[in-house]
């Protein structure tokens, strides 16, 4: 073998070695993901959960194409399929069930876990309070839901098919979570969410008040079905550590940047869709008392710019189309300026959304006082009631004292006390909860106020929906647990009532 040949063989062998010479460790390093980390800062996860969760339930699809139509704040002029409940089939509403679990609830779970592990109550507790709010929307929309076994898909003992908890137990869990959140925040520690919290900038005291106020909302839901627990929990809420909301300044508010990337979801929708008008139910209730919020809630009709009018819900496409110009669009504050179909002024893209308000708290107190429970007395009810309405008017920008006084003096508004008072509280709360269709819907189911809401003539069921249907994903991915829940709770249709909605006769406002 010549030297040249030897060299050639050696270089060949060198190539072979170069190809083969890769140890197993080196090759698995190739599989390290350069795009996404396996850990993320709690603050960034929290912010994401806030915009995702609030954007969902106060946002457009669940609210504007769902709850706000059901509760007849809004109605649809074109393609009124939602308003006819046609798109409340399980397939269409599955996302309101599935996505919160996989997005904001799971993300908040990670924040709670890391905050707890690092002993940072001011990180974990706000996440827990916010998670409770999201769970409240889900259970109020569907009834029994996975709760105690939920969000454990990636644990050591992974639960991929969580069981459904009774709504009663879900509520008990949610109330306990709020108690814990408020208590933990009494000793918040040095590290807060800070600016990563777009609602309260990480303020432990604000989150404490939020937890207690939300506690009051949840406790009141149980007033018909379990008055004893409701009264106990209300008392606990109203006297919880750190107190409750003191004024509109304490409101939990979602301030949308309005930069095109993150806009107020209503404004985002109105950019290109012109389907929605004020419902006749809401508009007529407001017109009857010359409600000063009308020009904020709604715009004058196109056909008569001096006039505000609502349209009936649930019309056929042909009938609904005739209301296009003769009923009021939602207020200009919700419009982003230019839309695909015209210019509406306004800075709706950054218009803030109210998550939980002082007005609602005062309505809760008014009802609690009217019922004479949780340490309040009937004599206090009128004060709370007037304060609630005033707070709502202020919140919507009506600050003229004369106008407020005039409104409170309207015969339909002035507090009557007793059963009539309860009905007034419920009706005014329904009006005040405009833009929060989900909570307005829950309150209507609990109080039956305003009375006389009926589905539109083209609706596919002859009752106002009392829930949405379970997710089609669950039908295949969690079959047995879902079946057990349905067997327990009642048929998986739009008519089955919530746990807290099952004793209408015990509710004094229902008749």
């Amino acid at each position, binding site marked *: 073998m010549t030297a040249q040949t030897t060299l*050639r063989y050696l270089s*060949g062998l060198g190539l072979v070695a170069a*190809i*083969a010479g*890769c140890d*197993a460790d080196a*090759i*698995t*390093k*190739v*599989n390290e*993901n350069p*795009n*996404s980390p*396996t850990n*993320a*800062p709690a603050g*960034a*996860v929290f*912010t*994401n959960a806030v*915009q*995702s969760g609030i954007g969902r339930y106060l946002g457009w699809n669940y609210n504007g194409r769902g709850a706000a139509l059901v509760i007849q704040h809004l109605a649809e*002029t*074109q393609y009124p399929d939602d308003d006819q409940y046609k798109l409340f089939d399980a397939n269409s509403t599955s996302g309101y*069930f599935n996505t919160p*679990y996989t997005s904001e609830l*799971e*993300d908040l779970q990670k924040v709670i876990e890391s905050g707890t592990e690092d002993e940072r109550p001011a990180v974990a507790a706000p996440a827990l309070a916010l998670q409770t709010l999201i769970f409240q929307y889900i259970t109020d929309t569907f009834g029994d839901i996975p709760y105690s076994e939920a*969000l*454990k*898909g990636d644990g050591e003992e*992974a639960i*991929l098919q*969580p069981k459904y908890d009774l709504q009663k137990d879900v509520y008990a869990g949610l109330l306990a979570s709020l108690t814990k959140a408020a208590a933990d925040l009494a000793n918040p520690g040095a590290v807060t969410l800070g600016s*990563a919290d*777009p609602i309260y900038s990480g303020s432990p005291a604000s989150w404490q008040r939020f937890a207690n106020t939300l506690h009051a909302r949840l406790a009141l839901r149980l007033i018909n079905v379990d008055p004893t627990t409701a009264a106990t929990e209300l008392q606990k809420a109203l006297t919880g550590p750190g107190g409750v909301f003191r004024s509109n300044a304490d409101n939990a508010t979602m301030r949308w*940047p309005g*930069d*095109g*990337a*993150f806009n107020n979801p209503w404004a985002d929708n109105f*950019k*290109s869709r*012109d389907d929605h008008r004020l419902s006749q139910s809401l508009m007529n209730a407001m017109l009857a008392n010359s409600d000063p919020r009308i020009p904020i809630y709604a715009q004058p009709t*196109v056909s008569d710019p001096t006039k505000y009018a609502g349209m009936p819900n649930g019309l056929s*496409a*042909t009938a609904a*189309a005739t209301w*296009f*110009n003769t009923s009021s669009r939602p207020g200009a504050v919700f419009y*982003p300026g*230019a*839309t*695909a*179909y015209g210019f509406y002024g306004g800075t709706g*893209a950054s218009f803030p959304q109210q998550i939980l308000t002082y007005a609602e708290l005062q309505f809760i107190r008014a009802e609690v006082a009217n019922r004479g429970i949780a340490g309040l007395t009937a004599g206090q009810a009128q004060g709370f009631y007037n304060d609630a309405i005033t707070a709502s008017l202020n919140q919507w920008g009506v600050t003229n004292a004369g106008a407020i006084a005039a409104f409170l003096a309207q015969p339909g508004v002035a507090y009557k006390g007793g059963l009539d008072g309860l009905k007034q509280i419920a009706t005014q709360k329904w009006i005040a909860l405009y833009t929060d269709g989900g909570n307005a819907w829950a309150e209507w189911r609990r109080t039956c106020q305003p009375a006389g809401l009926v589905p539109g003539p083209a609706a596919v069921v002859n009752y106002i929906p009392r829930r949405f249907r379970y997710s089609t*994903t669950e039908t*295949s991915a*969690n079959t047995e647990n879902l079946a057990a829940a349905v067997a327990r709770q009642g048929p998986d249709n739009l008519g089955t009532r919530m746990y807290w909605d099952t004793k209408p006769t015990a509710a004094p406002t229902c008749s």
Partner: protein
Amino acid sequence: MARRITYVLASAVFVLAASTHAARAQEPTRVQGLVTNDNRQPLSGVSVGIAALGVGAFTGDDGRYSFTIPAGRGTGQPATLTARRIGFQPVNATINLSATTITKDFILGSSPTQLEGVVVTALGITREKSQLGTAMQQVDAAELNRTKDQSIVNQLAGKVSGLNVTGSGTQGGSTKLTIRGTNSILGNNNPLFVVDGVPVSNAARSGSPNGGNATTGGMDFGSAVNDINPDDVESISVLKGPNAAALYGARASNGVIVITTKKGRATQGRVGTEFSANYSWDSPSILPEYQNAYGQGFGGDFKFVDGAGGGVNDGADESWGPKLDGRLIDQFSGAAQPWVANPDNVKDFFDGGHTMSGNLAFRGGTDRANARLSLGAENVQGYIPNNKFQKISGLLSGTMQVTPKFSADATLQYINNDARNRPGVGYNTGILEQFIWFGRQVNMDQLKAKRFDENGDLYNWNYNYHNNPYWIQFENPEADERDRFIGVASARYSILPWLDATVRGGSDIYALDISQQFAKGNLNWSVDPSYAGGFAYTTDSRSETNIDFLLTANRQVTSKLDMNGTFGLNRRSETFSSKIQQTNGISVPLIYNVSNAAITPTLAQNDTRRRVNSVFGSASGTYGGWVTLEGTIRNDISSTLPIGENSYVYPSGNLSFVLTEAFPSLRSNTLSFAKLRGSVARVGTDADPYSLQTTYAGDSRKFGALPLFGLGNTIANADLKPELTTSTEAGFELGFFNGRLSVDATYYQKTTDNQILNLTVSPTSGFTSVAINAGEIENKGWEVLLGATPVRLGNGFEWTTSVTWARNRGRVNELSGSLQTVTLGSAWGATVEARLNEPYGVIRGLPYARDSASGQILTDDDGYPAFGARRVLGNIQPDWTGGWSNTFSYKRFVVSALLDVRQGGDIFSISNMFGQYAGVFKESMYGREVDFDDPGVTFRGLNENTGQPNTATLTSEEFHHGLFQLHEAFVYDNSYVKLRELRVGYDLPANWAARLNSRAVNLAFVGRNLFTSANIPNIDPEFSYTTGNFQGMEFAPLPNARSFGFNLRITP
């Protein structure tokens, strides 16, 4: 990228420079001769050689060959000299090696299909087909290029048994290919493409029937393999499954398509010039049939005010309006316009498409070195207005016999693919989307003439949902461009006369830039109306580099026993990178630059890498020329699987038995060839990169100033294993009447288990899915290839015919635990699923509710058909597919035609659902023939509450709206027959050709998709938005082009 190209070039230089050995003078035996066909025309590219000695050569353009046998090798012995060429019967001759010059001429007879001869198999190794124990089919250039399609794979349609080709209709769109069904529920099921030994990407950026792809606007950017210029292809070998392809490793489970490009040849100093030119006229092959009796509106009423609901039903984009009787109605085009039908308004939208293409190639060389340079260009004016494609390609290949023992070759291809205003597909973004709705009275000319109103805003027939279709094509400029290099260099050294070593390095590298701009006022998501427009820019770059080392042995051990062996090493590195910048708001109109973004652009970056190291080998022995036994083994080590599971070994074995050689007495005038073969193989497939860890995804947009991160939705599995496909096949090949009739049939059965599934879990677990190994899919079926020359007359008339036929049954045998189904895709409530114990790809949805006793359809009290419980409504797999090709030649004329058939399988047609819902398709006339409400529809069925026949009457509008998402009504049989190719060719007289300094000049009339027969109305039944697994649903697909034109081909 530059670095990689340098690398490829450096490899080539290395290979060429490493050889300094000079040949020593010898006293050889020289063998030479002329090979011609039946008509005494010289045949080029014929392989003539002595297999036992491993020597031989190809004929040049003049049909002549010559090679030398080194002194001492076999001198004085008889040897078998064989001449073979694809498409011809091989001929043997015995010569005595005598250390002089031996002249031996051959005449080869053509055969319509090939049972014997040299074929290209795995790793580009040429083998004698009769010795192969696995199923493969080779298609040569002439057959491939009979008619011209933009897509090389579309040109395979109907020509290979068991290869299912579904074109997309979109010029430059993707083609879905499967061989022997679908192995992997969620993984890749596309065959691997290998060009000159280098695996090339067939990745697609695809649309969907939903069209909901935010970054690309739901466009189908085509299959990357279509970059290969068909004029550069010498042959395509389809290795039909793991058995034939086991040496390719993980990606072989779906079969391999081995493409060999044309090479230079010894031309005795003359430069051979080849030229081809095509021109064709293209038009949509199928358009919907519309009703022309009623115009836009609802309930028989319409009056235009603002086109968004301000008038009477003027927000409607449906045609349930007034009868088109010429009455005067306010319309988008002005007040009090005559209300008349525009029956051709949709047809008027389409332009006549034109496709021009040309290819010019030169080749030349000596015994020692040769080269081929090819330049191709294609220019397509699409049938959609303002839609253009341009492709240029260049290929340079060279071979050098440096010394008798050392040779080197290299090939470099460059392709540039440039598309403008590619049409969108699907519901949200499709250009044809609004024609499934539409006002039947709309005059398309008015939309064409005017895209802006007096204020400079969008001018259209409807302002609620749709952009003016011309606006989409002219005001929202789209451009995409792919630059691609495919390079390979290899060096081969004969260590011993029977042992070669080869080193090969090859890369496929491309960059795809997609730019989509949206004008101010464009409806739908893409532009925030508060801003002046928007854009989305995407850059993909992809590379795959393979480095191989191969030892190949080929030795006649005894006079009866031939042994072949290979040993190889391979390292494959893949990278993919995608970067996206998009915003739906810019500040200054018409400046579509990131610097002009008014809304912070969304940025996305996705980089993935994969590496696989492999060792493989094969050994085969042929005894007596009639029995061949082969075994292969391969070990892959993949980066995407966890340590411990990332190294996996898989074997294969096959046996070929030529009965007519083993028992010569079997051979008769009737039976000329008979062979049995069988094979068993196993192949493993790794996971996608980064499947082992759950990660957080960031959002480039900040919430105010706050960063956002969210946890991913798949629970990663750190213990994934490879998917394993086990395949068995057996076949026979028979030749009759001396090659006039041949049959090649295969039965196969394969199962893929350990499927890597993203198992859907309850979302309440916090996740949508978990990655697991579970489940089994079984595919079994038949492939048959039949060839015949029924007529061959003395006057030169010949009729050859071939039939391909295949049926595959894919079934889901196992899933995980209680899991019943894996959803492959869904649209409007219907799903395509891999469902336990069902055929793969069932369509599920809502059926009519039926009376259990009588089977009659039930209605509700209002007379609407009632919906039943969700069930399986169909299956996307065809019962069988086939092609029938016929060629008639007489003197200078050749006429050939190819029918492509798909029988069975189902489609959920969303076009038909909405076309009826919207009252525009012809079918929506049901119930309104007389007048709007009279007679109406009294649906034939039983009232679900009373059990009595339904008597309630609906208007046609109500009835057709009532069918929305009643999926059963819109599941259709997907059978079709297409006249895929027609060619009438004429060879110009030889003296004309001589004047052009060429051997032959052929002029042909060619047509593609000239005729389609289908069971489904209104759409082209052949569609694919994607090369992914979600098939069987469509919305407004672009129909495949019917094209006809001319082809000129000059052969050197």
